């Protein structure tokens, strides 16, 4: 009797498990569709000419991708400049932000000083303050410092990045033994040299993850650059996208519009596909401790 019950239970369990698996796959496929559909349409439309686009949607790519890009490059929006500006700002921000955040984390991790606990708590507390609430004072400040319309106010503040610091600190707690630093000291390395030649190389995996996140955050940033940059040739991609939106876009060649969006989105997607394993793994480490 009990045997029978057990078997029946198992069978039922088996069916419901099978059923749940099917439901899970269906929802996952829907989620995948929800995530990829837009980029699929974007890709298709970027390869079609304006007149083709006017006839309605088709699922097959056209042959106008390169022509659309050439037209866009020769158009009024300094799109190529914008890409270079975005690239430059994002790369330098990522480099500064990761290097100096590692340094800050190292200060808290490796040394004992009176204000250590206070500093750590302070940085954690200010981590959540959004840049938008200080934007007003920020704009006035860079006006007074004569840094208006310059890349410096977009790059240099990256040195103080509490979230990157926090990730580095977590990573150090898990992987950087103090005995190693001790050994370097015995070998006569100075503190600064120890940091640059021993700590930074050991932190490479964490630096790589955070460099990607800093790069993407800076590449995608619209709010601050829009307040700082005014000259057309200095503008970054998100500002140009906003300009495209506020232009009389109906008169635009829609093929060009799609190519421009595609060129803002696809570089990040490509980098992501290559590095996705590290990125997805990096999300959890930075966010929650438990």
């Amino acid at each position: 009797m009990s045997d029978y019950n057990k078997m029946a239970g198992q069978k039922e369990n088996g069916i419901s498990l099978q059923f749940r698996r099917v439901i899970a796959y269906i929802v996952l496929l829907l989620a995948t569709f929800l995530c990829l559909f837009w980029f699929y349409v974007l890709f298709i439309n970027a390869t079609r000419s304006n007149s083709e686009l006017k006839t309605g949607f088709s699922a097959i790519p056209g042959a106008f991708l390169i022509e659309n890009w050439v037209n866009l490059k020769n158009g009024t929006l300094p799109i190529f400049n914008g890409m270079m500006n975005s690239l430059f700002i994002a790369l330098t921000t990522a480099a500064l932000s990761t290097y100096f955040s590692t340094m800050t984390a190292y200060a808290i991790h490796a040394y004992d000083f009176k204000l250590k606990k206070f500093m750590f708590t302070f940085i954690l507390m200010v981590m959540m303050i959004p840049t938008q609430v200080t934007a007003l004072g920020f704009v006035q400040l860079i006006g007074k410092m004569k840094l208006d319309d310059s890349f410096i106010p977009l790059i240099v503040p990256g040195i103080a990045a509490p979230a990157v610091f926090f990730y580095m600190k977590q990573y150090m707690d898990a992987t950087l033994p103090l005995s190693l630093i001790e050994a370097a000291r015995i070998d006569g390395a100075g503190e600064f040299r120890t940091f640059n030649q021993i700590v930074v190389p050991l932190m490479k995996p964490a630096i790589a993850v955070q460099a990607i996140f800093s790069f993407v955050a800076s590449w995608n940033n619209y709010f601050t650059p829009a307040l700082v940059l005014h000259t057309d040739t200095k503008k970054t991609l998100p500002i140009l996208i906003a300009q495209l939106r506020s232009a009389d876009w109906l008169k635009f060649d829609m093929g060009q519009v799609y190519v421009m969006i595609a060129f803002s989105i696809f570089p990040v997607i490509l980098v992501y596909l290559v590095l996705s394993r590290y990125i997805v793994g990096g999300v959890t480490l930075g966010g929650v401790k438990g």
Partner: protein
Amino acid sequence: MKKSKVVSYNKWGYIFLIPFIVIYLLFQMVPLVSTIYNSFFENYRSGLTQIGPNFVGIENYKTIITNGDLPTYFMNTMIMWIMGFIPQIILSLLLGAWFTDPSLRLKFQGFFKTVIYLPNLIMASAFSMLFFTLFADGGPINSMLMQMGFISEPYQFMSHVWSVRTLIASMNCIMWFGNTTILLMAGMLGIDPSLFEAAQVDGATAGQVFFKITLPLLRPILIFVMVTSLIGGLQMFDVPQILTNGTGDPMRSSMTLIMYLNKHLYNKNYGLGGALSVFMFVITAILSFIVFKFTNSEEV
């Protein structure tokens, strides 16, 4: 001798902190203080004449509350956040539970995780511009819907209050549910597996396990996710700004707090902008404090 050596090393702690402290004070602290200072002054341009700065006390705060702007835009922001967050958290909980359920043994997990996280890295302004072109009156979505025979003439997504809000909420949901799923998964993997085994032995169904074990034990992380998402939601800017070209139309129903702030910054209305910033700062500070309490209590 030994002790003095230890002390001499530890001064390096301060030295290594210098870049952070200098840059933080200069680019964050000074602007914060001057923003707060500005909020007590009347300072704007009316045509070509500059008014102020004159000290007006809390007049700016009274203005943004009583002229109805702040409450309206706060409500807009909250409505769009909630519309995006509810599907986002449900989807994330479901996917997280499925990904971490060992008995389901889902295949292609790496692929699915990669795909659902992808939209989080997309430039929000470009994504919003993409939605704008896709959902335009003559855009591909309308053309698809007409080809499939759902509608006979283009639906004007940009002219209806709830369709614009839905588009904004959907974009936020698509961009963030992957991130939330991964955070929740980390929490779910942290739950002691013996609890699930015990429940299975007792014959609990998947639903019972989810509601009686997973959810209650996930509470701290759920609160963390919710509050950080709320902080992010209050900063909602890129998506509605680009989608509506900064107008928050129709009838300012999709104008968010930061879009309003952005408007003041462009018009150089620093008094009202300052008051609005301080308001945002106080709300964020309270919410951050809750997050801080939670993550800290977990650690100890």
